[in-house]
């Protein structure tokens, strides 16, 4: 029988070497870097890489989580476990606080989510701690606008990305010089694909939140996708929750991440599913579907 490795090959270790190089540059070039941790597989991969980059030393920057309040409880539990396991400092800031302070306003309607509101809390957190570099797990294969973003992406005081004013990045030289008030978003796994991440998690035998694996859950069907039922989801009268066996391919908020019907209880089956999937990873992210240029527009506003 053909194994997963026959089909997709071994994880290209060059990617790990390159990502570790980037993380070391961040630690060396910036005074107050932070790793933006979402609890998803990409940021978990980043934590693993950071562990390796500075071993046997500790990770020299904090993990920062912008908690929307709409996270899956499994994600939060995992986050706390990982911080303890790695000995990394964990900083959590809440979107609810930004709403209470009147800086952000809850969306309404059945597609309401706090995805966009996160930006407000993120920018406040950057200011509070004077972070000059924020490391994120975005990958270029996820989305067309992301395919054009640099590894060191300079943002102005308002966190805004300007696609036309990006610095050229040549060879592996990273220029992290910034003016006061500016900060840099750093994407060490820019060149990894979804399959690379899964292949890495498999080869490294990494722990991931349980919701990536098949489980039973109350869901509703909307727009041909399965949405996790929760107190945060605005349901219409005919959207009646039912139990289904599902897993999540990508983990965002409960209000903007769709589940896929799946019996995959181990990582080999997950990889098989991705190989035969007919829908791309971010196809399950309702936040991206708002318009053809949804991601680029959010990035211009300071989104991650």
């Amino acid at each position, binding site marked *: 029988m053909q194994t997963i490795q026959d089909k997709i*090959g071994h994880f290209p270790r*060059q*990617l790990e070497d390159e990502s570790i*190089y980037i993380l070391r540059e961040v630690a060396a070039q910036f005074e107050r870097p932070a790793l933006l941790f979402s609890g998803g597989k990409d940021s978990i991969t980043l934590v693993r890489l950071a562990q390796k980059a500075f071993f046997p030393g500790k990770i020299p920057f904090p993990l920062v989580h912008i908690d929307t309040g709409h996270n899956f409880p499994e994600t939060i539990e995992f986050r706390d476990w990982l911080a303890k396991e790695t000995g990394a400092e964990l900083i959590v800031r809440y979107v609810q606080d930004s709403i209470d302070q009147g800086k952000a306003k809850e969306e309404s309607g059945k597609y309401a989510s706090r995805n966009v509101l996160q930006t407000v809390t993120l920018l406040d957190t950057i200011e509070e701690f004077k972070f000059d570099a924020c490391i994120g797990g975005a990958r*270029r294969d996820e989305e067309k606008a992301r*395919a054009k973003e640099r590894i060191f992406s300079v943002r102005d005081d308002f966190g805004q990305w300007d696609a036309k004013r990006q*610095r050229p990045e040549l060879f592996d030289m990273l220029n992290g*010089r910034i003016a006061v008030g500016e900060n840099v978003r750093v994407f060490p796994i820019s060149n990894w694909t979804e399959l690379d991440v899964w292949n890495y998690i498999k080869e490294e035998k990494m722990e991931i939140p349980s919701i990536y694996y098949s489980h039973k859950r109350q869901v509703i069907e909307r727009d041909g996708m399965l949405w996790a039922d929760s107190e945060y989801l605005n349901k219409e009268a005919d959207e009646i929750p039912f139990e289904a066996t599902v897993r999540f391919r990508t983990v965002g908020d409960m209000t903007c991440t769709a589940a896929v019907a799946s019996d995959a209880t181990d990582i080999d089956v997950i990889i098989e599913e991705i190989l035969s999937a007919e829908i*791309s990873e971010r196809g399950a992210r309702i936040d991206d579907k708002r318009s053809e240029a949804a991601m680029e527009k959010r990035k211009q506003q300071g989104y991650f």
Partner: protein
Amino acid sequence: MDILRIATAGSVDDGKSTLIGRLLYETNSITKDKIEALESASKRKGLDFLDLSLLTDGLIAEREQGITIDVANIYFSTPTRKYIIADTPGHVEYTRNMVTGASNAKVSLILVDARQGVVEQTARHLSIAAMLRIPKVIICVNKMDLVQYQESTFNTIKESLSELVAQTTFEGQEISFLPISSLYGQNITQKTSEMPWFKGNTLLGELEAFEYASSLAHAPARFPVQFVVRPMTEAYHDFRGYAGKISSGTFNVGDAIRVLPTGQESKIATIEKFETKLDQAIAGDSVTITLTTDVDISRGNTLVLASEENAPALKDFSAQVCWLDHTALSPGKTYLLQHGINTTKAKISQITERLDVATQTSTQGVDTLNLNEIGTIALRTAQPISADQYAANPANGAFILIDEFTNSTVGVGFVK
């Protein structure tokens, strides 16, 4: 598995994005939802075929104008290799993006429109591939369907490029020509019956077969120290490791090393990769090296093998540069020079000549280098840099110039 990085270049409308879309499509690298999105977008544009270029033109302005503005990175895999394509625009004014996208590439794909033949851009691309010392160039003569698949058209283009190829190529560079149709997927991943006269491989076949022998592992050994690891914990009380990515060559445990620029010598005690201890590490490996003796080493120092002669220390030297900024390079001005991870001030004393890459002719006595222009400069750095000649060891021979006031990366240089 390894990674092969490819740069694509071409003029406006010669079908570069379509070619990439084709590669993704035929290697099953795009999913159904993306194809459906393409179908509806193509229909909206009134096209009766799949406009695969819509896959890569990601920015709003690009879709509006139907052009590619910035470097886009695109990924596909076969069971043997992971491919990363830097899709770079072919407009004259965007040469800087082309140099940027191609800087990491091992293969350069150059597109030529079969109806138009060789244009100035083709020459520009060939020269840039040579300047960056890209080991393989594949010249794809595209839109063969529009010239009735004539062998004579293909041969004419091939011949008209032969002089330029001879002029720009360097020893060890492989150059091949392929007749293709991106629109109909001919000679991309599958041979076509329309061009029985072409006996060569398909494009994917060429890419799969290309071995860039680990020439980097045999180059002089260079290990720039990025970060000093000093845990100062109980378990690792005296641990002092030098973390970095090997630029070129090979290091073994027990090797005698020299520290640049200080000249101190020591011996490698361990080479570590997380919890694994290695006997050997080669170019591209991110490792942590410990030494047998206490030496004063900090970020920016470079470890080399003590057995290798002529370790470089450059302070006054000349370099080829490509200017990347809207504000022109002006002699006399101080810039920051970043070589690898190391930064020092640099003053450009003179522009020796400007090169017209399209014609391969140079002009002396120029005062400035503008955006997208290439020239030779003489410069002096505040601290010596441990750089090799780019032609001899590309992994340790390039640098960038940074404007001290805007912090922008304004130029890229290649040590002569």
